[in-house]
Structures are given as structure tokens and as C-alpha cells.
């Protein structure tokens, strides 16, 4: 850019000096132009050099003359203000371009920097103006204007202007501002609180959410403002949160991210729970963070929900516990009186009665039984609903389980003339693993309903394998109970599975009895991994199906009984006489599975024909299975007829009957029937009966006829302690036990039982679990604790309501030996009691021996006149007087001494060894008391000697006295044994 517009007055020294000063001043903004202007040392360079100097500047430099005439513009100025050149060239005294102020308002010429400097005679600095080119593009200029004042006149000559292009800087500044604004808006609009804390722990930034969440205003947060009164941070457990542990502080101190949850409380606000996550911020390459950025989340709702959930769960658990406890108690409370009712009825029915009375009592018994059944169902159902019913899988024989389940229905079926049959597929594993009790419950329910709603025909229970999973050793069994009853209309079929259906109560009652049985069965089956459904045609009958999953055991051996004798019956020909097709089918299948050869006939007449022809063929039947009750000629008449015929008189006959009673057993005996089997026939029973029948020469010794357990006599009449608080139950149990030949002592509660056991050696203790004062579990534990010293172990049998799972374990844990359920079934009680008594009787204790003898001779004449030992050892007469001639009491005292004596002696020895004079004296004193009661003079004196030595601190001399005492005690024991035994 050559010097086209070199100012005409360039030679003016003042101007030049000013320009030079301005140039320097622009480089150094601190320069005081005015001062420099007057300084003499300012150089006066050559014009050309000066022009070059100005043109190299990046800043625009303009000079306006006294009349506003633009006289000079350097190269940068011409670039920034293109019109400047034109203005200089034209010589117009008016600026050619337009200037706008900071706010974009067009400036009046008088407001131009040069005009201001001229009019005010003061320099103008840093005035921001803009120019616009033809396209409206703005150029921002930072202007300085300095008036050159003539020192002589004081008038302003030239005004020197400098222009700096700040367009780019403004753009950047604005972009930065906008960016900051955007960022700010974003942060403020976040739902999470944001807090920036600097390394000096002052808070630099917080957003609106942080204020809202923490309950602190920005003023209360920013910097290092103290937390306001009443503002508190707490931990989840309610304790105070130490703010020095705040994640933000931790992040600044450790340089690592941190997080925590806390509650913040402030006056007038509910606790807000916040989750704080903090990250440290680092400058590039810095080792320590310069700030920590925390995000704060309001988790109050979540925490409240958790708390509410936890509380709800606890409440539910408490309710469930209360419900369970209530059930357990109810169960006990209901069963206890029911036990009394049923037991007393059973006893009454066992006595001599008028026929009418018997009938009344039977009705009462049936009513009580069905009441108990309903109660059980309700309890069961509640347990299932509460999820408290757990299966207890254990190995069981399926056939036995099914048999036991339908057995009780036999009499009712027989009364109605129904055939009750059962068939287990021959390929069924004999032993399955599952809850046989619950399976039996389902079967009993279904079969019970079938009997109830069937007037004619038959009820058949079948069990088949539906699928086998050998890998899992699992089998799914398909059970079906088919009846020929009234059936269920299609539209009622779904109804019957629902509990408490009120929609059509009459239908429910008509088809499913009490209303709970099927609902329970459905749930039980579901627990067993199967499902329950019904197929039914109204008027034709129903079939209830269900499946259940069982584990199988690898290489299940068949029942030992079957195995041992299988050869005996293999290949034998059997004649089956039964009018029921189903029964014939089942028997056929069963017998074939044992490799027997059955011939099946449906009537007595056909049976005789079959026997005749077999006899003629020289292949008589080895065995006859005869249904007792058949139309035309019944089984008994058939056998009678056979016995008349010498050829058939010796045939081995098994009679299958529907019910005991009616003299069936007697008729069987009279007819020489080898065994009578009650329907439904269980294959195992049948097999056992066949084996037994064939193994015996004479049919007279057939299977023992069913005897009423009430009439049983114990093989080991014993002395039994009954701990039971309920008077009715006491009466019942005492009556039953005495009937079996036992003598019974009753304790009203656990404490009394404890005392009784301490006093007397019982053969067995029957212990009710729930009793006042001290319950059975506690009493048992205390008895066992006491026995730890003596080595004795009295068998304790728990009596408790069977319903609640875990009861049994509790009893056994407490140290009980066995368990019978209440209301107790006499057979169960007898079955549990007898083996224990047998074991107890076999115990080789002379103590037991002495006791049994003592009991037997309890009322015999007292005291032999001459005792085989000196009076000084035991004064027999005095002792006998003390016990009032009661031999039993004497035996008990002797027994007590056998445990007390050695215990005291042991205490004595221990105290002596420990040189414990007081201990020796105490033990000797106790021993002396005991032998004193037994009128054992020598022992008494020996003990007294020891005691006195010990009390007079002459323990070193007590050893010999102790030895004497031990000798005397040993002698006393021998004497007592013979004394009690000889009596």
C-alpha cells in the first residue's frame, strides 16, 4: 500500500510528534500521550520512514484536521474503514461512513470519538463502535481519540484516532457467554442437584434442584456459608451424619469418586432422602483435584417405598406368625376336647349296652368323627392358604399307602353294598419317595366322596405310571378314583374345586360334601407337582384324576416278604370267585404279576363247575379266593358246600369280605377258611395271606382274627406316669392304660411330672406337650438334665396335636423318645408303648427288678421278721415303721438312695480331693440325712464322724473316716437290695 494518501500537512512537526507518540502509546497502553507529546527528545524521523512505520501497525491510525477534515489514514485504518480513503480523496469535511454505538444505534456525528475529543478537548479511550459494510456485516472497533492542542492558543488542531478491530474478540466473548448460558440453563433445568465444591471446600456452584432437594438456598450453600439452624443431615439409622464424611469432601481429600445416602432435615420439611454421587475434577496433568462435582438425587420416594415395604412385610410376617400360633392353639384347643369325646365314646361302646344305646352312641361317634374331619379340613386349608403346609418326603410303599387311605372307607362301602377296589400297575416301583400322608389324604378325600355319592356299583382306585424320568430318578404317577355315582353336571364341574364358593352352595354341597376337601386336595396335588381334574357324566358316575410327582430310588428292591417266598407260589393255579368284574380284573392282574395262574369265575355255581373240571383233569386248584358276598349263593355258602364234598374239603380258601363283623370272622373259622381279607384288598396283604395259608398245615391257625385293641393286654404291665393337664384326657388315658394292665400315676403339669420322676422310677412317661406351669418340652429337658448325673433314661412319649409341622422335631430335640398324636388312636398308642415297655422290662437293672417285685407284692404282708444283716446296718423294723409298712414306698426309697447315695459320695470325694472342708461337711451332712431316714445307724455315724472332722478343720484326719463311710454305704446298699428284694 504505497503512500497515495500521504497527508499534505505531514511536515507539520507537531502532528508528526503526536503520531509518533500515538504509535508508541498503542504499543504500550500505559503511555501518557499528553506527557510524551511535550517531551523534547521525541525524534523527528523522515517522512517516508514514518509512513512505513505506521503502515506496519495492525492498528488503524487516522488524523482529523481542525475542520473535521480527514487528513491521514494508515494502511490498517483504510482496511477497517474503507470509506476513509474516499473521504481523504474527496476532501469532504464530513465522515463518509456511519458509526453505530455498542447497542447498534446509529451515532450522530457529534458523538463520534473524534468529535467528542475535539469538543471536550479530552482524549477518548476505549469507545466501542461498529461500522457496517454493504452487506450489513458488522466490524467492531475499539476507538481512542486524542486531541492535539496548540499550547499557545489552547485550540485543538488535529485529532488522532486509533482503531482496534475487536470483532473477533466480541464474537468469541458472545459465544462463550451463550455457551455459559446454555450450560447454566441446562444445569438449572436438571432434576438432579448439582454442586461444585472447590479444593478449598468452598462451594462454587449449585443449581436450583440442589436448592430444592437439600432445602438450602444458594446463599446458604455457596462459598462457605454455615448451615442454617435446624438443618440436619442424618444416616439411614437416624443417627447424625458427620458432614466431614460427605462424598464431596471425601472426593477432594482422597481424589476418588465417592457416594452415599443421607437424609436431610430442616425445619418445616419432612426428611428428604438423598443419594449423593461425587466425582473429583482434575486440571490436565494435576495430581490433586481442583474441585468435586456432586450430583444429588432425591430418593425419598424410593426410600419411603422400601420402608413401607419392609414394614408391610414385617406386619405380614407378624400376622402370619400370629395366625400360625392361633392355628396351633386352636388345633390343640379343639382336639383336646374332641379327644375326650371320641375316647369316651370308644370306651362306652366297649361296655355292655342296650342295642338302642349302642346305636345312639354310634351316631354320636360318627358325628364326632365327622366334626373332627371338618375341623381338620379347615385347619389344613388354612395351613395350605398360609403356605405353611410343607410336604415331608420319605420313602413309602405306594400300595400300602393307598390301602391305608381307603381302608377306613371299607365299612361304609360295605353297608351300601359297594365294591371298593384298588389296582396298582404292576410296573410301579414298590417304593416311592414322597409325602405319603398327604397323598393318602387326597386319596381318602376323593374315595370318600365317591362312596358318599354312589348308591350302587363300585369305586375303583387305580395308580399307573404316566411318565418316568430315569435321569432325575423321578416318576409321575396318574391316580384315578372312578365311581358309578350320581355324577356331576358339566356346568358344575369347575365349581366343585373352589373353596367357599357361595354362588351355588347347594350344588357344592350336593357334589363335594363339606366344601373344603377338594379345594385342599387340589392344592395338595399342586404341591406334589401334579394336577387334579374330573371327568363326569351326570347319572353315570365320575372319575377324579390327579397326577403327582415322586422320586424313585435306584435299584429298588421289592418287599423282602415277597422276595423270600416268591418261589412257593409261582405257577400255582388259583380259582378266583367274585361277582365284580373290576375285582376279578384286579385280582387277575395281581396274581399274574406273581406268576400264578388264576382262573376267574363270577358266581358260586361257576366256581363249583370249575373245581369239578379241574379235579377231573387231575389239576386241582391249589388255592381259592372267594368273595364273601355274592348274589344267589354267597361265598360262605360256597365254602360250606365245598366242605361237604370230600374231594374239596381240604382246599385252601381265602375269603374276601367287605366288612368285619356280622360274625364273618366266626363263620370263617368254622368253615376252616385260612384267612379272611377285608376289601379293598391290598396286594401285599393278599400275598402275605397266601404265603401264610400255603405254609400252614392246618387252617385253624389262620391269621389272627382282628382283635379290638381296647381288649388287648400289655405283655409288660408297668407303672406309667401320665403328664396331662386336661381332666377328660386324664380319665380317658388312665382308663385305657389300666385296661391294658398298667398302673398309672397322673401329673397335672410338667413340674409335677418332674417331681414324680424324681421320686419314682417309671417304666415310661406319657407327656402332653402343652401344659400349664411347665410344658412337656421343658419338663423333658429338665428330666434329661437330671438324668445326666444318674445315667438313668426314662422313656418319654410325647402326646401332641399332630397338625403343625416341626412339632415332632421339637419333641425329639427336647429329648423325648417317641411321639403319639392327639387325639390318640388306641392302636397307635399301644403300638408305640409296647415295644418301649418290652425294652424297658429287658433292662438288666436290679433296680427295675426290685421295683417289679415290689409292685407285685405291694399289698403282701410286711417285713420278714429276721433280716439277713445286722440291725446296725439297717434297722429293718424302724425302717418298716417309717414307711408305714408300704413296700412300694420302701422300694422307691431304696431306688432313690441308689442314685442319691453315689452322688453324695462323689461330692464328698471331690471336696476331699480339693481340700474343701465346707464341701466335705456339706456332702457328709447330706449323706447323713439320707441314711438317717433309712435308719442305717452305722452309715449315719460314719457320716457324722466325717462331718464333725470337717467342721473342726481336721480334714487331714477325715480321709480314714471317709473310707469307713464308703464301706458302710456299700454295705448299706447291699443290705437294702436284699431287704427290698426279699420282701
Amino acid at each position, binding site marked *: 500500500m504505497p503512500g497515495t494518501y500521504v497527508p499534505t500537512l505531514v511536515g507539520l512537526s507537531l502532528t508528526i510528534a503526536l503520531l509518533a507518540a500515538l504509535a508508541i502509546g498503542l504499543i504500550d497502553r500505559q503511555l501518557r500521550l499528553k506527557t510524551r507529546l511535550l517531551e523534547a527528545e521525541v525524534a523527528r524521523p523522515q517522512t517516508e520512514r514514518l509512513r512505513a512505520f505506521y503502515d506496519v501497525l495492525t492498528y488503524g491510525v487516522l488524523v482529523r484536521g481542525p475542520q473535521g477534515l480527514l487528513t491521514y489514514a494508515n494502511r490498517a485504518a483504510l482496511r477497517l474503514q474503507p470509506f476513509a480513503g474516499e473521504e481523504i480523496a474527496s476532501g469532504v469535511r464530513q465522515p463518509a461512513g456511519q458509526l453505530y454505538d455498542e447497542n447498534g444505534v446509529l451515532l450522530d456525528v457529534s458523538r463520534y470519538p473524534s468529535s467528542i475529543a475535539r469538543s471536550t478537548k479530552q482524549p477518548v479511550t476505549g469507545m466501542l463502535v461498529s461500522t457496517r459494510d454493504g452487506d450489513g456485516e458488522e466490524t467492531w472497533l475499539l476507538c481512542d481519540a486524542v486531541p492535539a492542542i496548540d499550547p499557545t492558543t489552547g485550540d485543538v488542531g488535529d485529532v488522532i484516532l486509533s482503531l482496534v478491530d475487536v470483532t473477533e474478540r466480541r464474537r468469541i466473548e458472545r459465544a462463550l457467554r451463550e455457551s455459559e448460558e446454555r450450560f447454566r440453563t441446562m444445569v438449572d433445568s436438571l432434576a438432579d442437584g448439582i454442586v461444585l465444591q472447590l479444593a478449598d471446600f468452598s462451594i462454587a456452584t449449585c443449581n436450583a434442584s440442589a436448592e430444592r432437594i437439600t432445602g438450602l438456598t444458594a446463599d446458604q450453600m455457596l462459598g462457605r456459608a454455615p448451615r442454617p439452624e435446624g438443618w440436619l443431615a442424618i444416616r439411614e439409622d437416624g443417627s447424625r451424619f458427620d458432614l466431614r464424611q460427605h462424598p464431596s469432601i471425601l472426593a477432594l481429600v482422597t481424589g476418588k469418586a465417592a457416594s452415599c445416602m443421607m437424609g436431610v432435615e430442616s425445619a418445616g420439611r419432612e426428611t428428604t432422602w438423598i443419594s449423593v454421587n461425587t466425582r473429583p475434577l482434575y486440571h490436565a496433568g494435576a495430581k490433586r483435584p481442583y474441585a468435586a462435582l456432586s450430583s444429588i438425587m432425591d430418593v425419598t420416594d424410593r426410600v419411603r417405598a422400601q420402608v413401607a415395604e419392609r414394614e408391610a412385610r414385617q406386619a405380614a410376617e407378624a400376622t402370619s406368625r400370629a395366625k400360625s400360633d392361633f392355628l396351633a392353639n386352636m388345633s390343640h384347643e379343639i382336639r383336646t376336647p374332641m379327644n375326650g369325646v371320641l375316647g369316651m365314646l370308644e370306651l362306652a361302646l366297649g361296655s355292655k349296652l342296650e342295642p338302642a344305646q349302642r346305636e345312639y352312641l354310634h351316631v354320636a361317634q360318627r358325628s364326632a368323627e365327622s366334626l373332627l374331619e371338618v375341623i381338620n379340613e379347615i385347619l389344613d386349608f388354612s395351613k395350605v392358604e398360609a403356605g405353611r403346609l410343607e410336604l415331608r418326603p420319605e420313602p413309602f410303599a405306594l400300595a400300602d399307602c393307598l390301602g391305608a387311605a381307603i381302608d377306613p372307607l371299607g365299612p361304609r362301602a360295605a353297608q351300601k353294598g359297594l365294591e371298593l377296589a384298588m389296582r396298582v400297575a404292576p410296573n410301579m416301583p414298590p417304593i416311592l419317595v414322597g409325602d405319603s400322608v398327604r397323598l393318602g389324604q387326597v386319596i381318602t378325600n376323593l374315595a370318600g366322596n365317591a362312596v358318599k355319592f354312589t348308591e350302587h356299583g363300585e369305586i375303583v382306585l387305580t395308580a399307573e405310571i404316566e411318565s418316568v424320568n430315569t435321569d432325575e430318578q423321578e416318576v409321575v404317577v396318574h391316580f384315578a378314583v372312578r365311581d358309578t355315582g350320581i355324577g356331576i353336571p358339566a356346568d358344575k364341574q369347575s365349581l366343585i374345586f373352589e373353596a367357599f364358593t357361595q354362588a351355588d352352595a347347594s350344588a357344592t354341597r350336593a357334589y363335594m360334601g363339606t366344601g373344603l376337601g377338594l379345594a385342599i386336595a387340589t392344592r395338595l396335588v399342586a404341591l406334589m407337582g401334579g394336577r387334579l381334574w374330573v371327568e363326569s357324566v351326570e347319572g353315570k358316575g365320575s372319575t377324579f384324576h390327579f397326577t403327582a410327582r415322586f422320586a424313585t430310588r435306584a435299584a429298588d428292591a421289592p418287599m423282602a416278604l415277597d422276595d423270600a417266598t416268591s418261589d412257593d407260589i409261582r405257577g400255582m393255579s388259583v380259582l378266583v370267585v367274585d361277582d365284580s368284574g373290576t375285582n376279578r380284573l384286579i385280582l387277575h392282574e395281581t396274581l399274574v404279576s406273581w406268576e400264578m395262574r388264576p382262573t376267574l369265575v363270577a358266581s358260586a355255581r361257576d366256581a363249583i363247575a370249575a373245581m369239578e373240571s379241574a379235579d377231573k383233569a387231575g389239576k386241582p386248584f391249589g388255592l381259592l379266593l372267594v368273595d364273601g358276598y355274592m348274589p344267589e349263593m354267597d361265598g360262605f355258602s360256597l365254602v360250606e358246600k365245598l366242605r361237604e364234598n370230600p374231594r374239596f374239603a381240604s382246599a385252601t380258601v381265602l375269603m374276601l369280605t367287605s366288612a368285619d363283623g356280622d360274625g364273618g370272622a366266626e363263620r370263617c373259622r368254622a368253615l376252616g377258611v385260612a384267612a379272611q381279607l377285608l376289601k379293598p384288598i391290598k396286594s401285599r396283604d393278599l400275598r402275605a395271606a397266601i404265603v401264610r395259608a400255603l405254609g400252614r398245615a392246618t387252617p385253624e391257625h389262620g391269621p389272627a382274627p382282628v382283635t379290638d385293641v381296647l381288649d388287648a393286654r400289655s405283655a409288660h404291665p408297668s407303672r406309667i406316669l401320665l403328664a396331662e393337664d386336661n381332666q377328660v384326657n386324664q380319665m380317658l388315658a388312665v382308663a385305657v392304660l389300666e385296661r391294658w394292665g398298667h398302673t398309672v400315676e397322673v401329673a397335672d403339669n410338667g413340674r409335677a411330672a418332674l*417331681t414324680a420322676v424324681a421320686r419314682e422310677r417309671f417304666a415310661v412317661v406319657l407327656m402332653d406337650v402343652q401344659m400349664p406351669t411347665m410344658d412337656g418340652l421343658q419338663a423333658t429337658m429338665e428330666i434329661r438334665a437330671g438324668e445326666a448325673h444318674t445315667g438313668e433314661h426314662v422313656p418319654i412319649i410325647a402326646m401332641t396335636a399332630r397338625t403343625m409341622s416341626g412339632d415332632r422335631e421339637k419333641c425329639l430335640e427336647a429329648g423325648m423318645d417317641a411321639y403319639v398324636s392327639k387325639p390318640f388312636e388306641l392302636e397307635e398308642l399301644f403300638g408305640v408303648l409296647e415295644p418301649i415297655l418290652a425294652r424297658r422290662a429287658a433292662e438288666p437293672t436290679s433296680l427295675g427288678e426290685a421295683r417289679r417285685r415290689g409292685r407285685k407284692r405291694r399289698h403282701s404282708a410286711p417285713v420278714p421278721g429276721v433280716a439277713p444283716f445286722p440291725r446296725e446296718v439297717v434297722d429293718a423294723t424302724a425302717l418298716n415303721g417309717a*414307711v408305714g409298712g408300704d413296700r412300694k414306698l420302701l422300694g422307691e426309697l431304696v431306688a432313690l438312695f441308689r442314685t442319691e447315695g453315689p452322688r453324695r459320695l462323689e461330692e464328698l470325694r471331690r471336696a476331699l480331693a480339693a481340700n474343701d472342708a465346707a464341701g466335705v461337711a*456339706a456332702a457328709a*451332712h*447330706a449323706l447323713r440325712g*439320707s441314711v438317717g*431316714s433309712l435308719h442305717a445307724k452305722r452309715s449315719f455315724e460314719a457320716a457324722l464322724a466325717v*462331718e464333725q472332722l470337717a467342721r473342726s478343720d481336721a480334714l487331714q484326719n477325715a480321709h480314714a473316716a471317709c473310707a469307713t463311710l464308703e464301706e458302710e454305704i456299700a454295705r448299706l446298699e447291699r443290705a437294702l437290695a436284699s431287704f427290698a428284694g426279699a420282701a
Partner: protein
Amino acid sequence: MKKPRRVLIADDDRILTHLLSSRLQAKGWAVDVALDAMQAVMFARQKGPDIIVLDIAMPGGTGRQALHSLKASSKLRAIPVVALSGSVEPEDEAKIVALGAVEFLRKPIDPDVLDARLRAVLGDDAAA
């Protein structure tokens, strides 16, 4: 039939307590047995005995403490206590009675004698 008299026998000697309780029961008493001093006081409250037979020589002086407790209780004070002792040291009978016992018997105890003494204390006809 008259309601049987109830006696509480408190003694740590199980042979003696068994003997006495069996014999007294045979003579128509209702008997409770306490095997230590604490039980004695507890049973005195629970069982409501008409009379108490207490071994005051039970180990550790607990027999005397039991007597003291019984007599310190306004509820139990009225129940007469027959004190037993098997101690070799001469018991100061007057002292025991001062503690509140109505009778003092030295061991060994004859059940028949005890029965008679108890009835005498209660003012019962011995033949009852």
C-alpha cells in the same frame, strides 16, 4: 369329705422328702415338695399350703433365709412353719422360734411323729 390339709415340705434331702411326702399323703395330706429354698418360697406362694415343713439347715444358710422370706411376706406370714434341722451343732431353738417357726424338730424325723405334730399345730383332730 373334708378338703385335705396341704403341707409344703422343703428339704434338699430327696430321700427324706420322698419318705415324708409318701407317708403324709397316705395319711390324707396333700403334699408339695420343694427341693431348695427358692422353690420353697415360690411354692409357698403358688400352692397355698396350710403349713410348711422347712429344713433350716439347707446348704449355705438358705434354709434360714427361706424362713426369713416367709415371715417377711405379709401374705405368707400367717402360714405356720415347722423347722427341721439335722445339724450337729446345737441349734438355738429359741432363736429359730424367734425367727417365726412354731415348732422345732431335730432329724431324723419319724413320719408318724411329724404327722401328729403338724396336726397339733393346725389344731386338727389327729384321728381325722
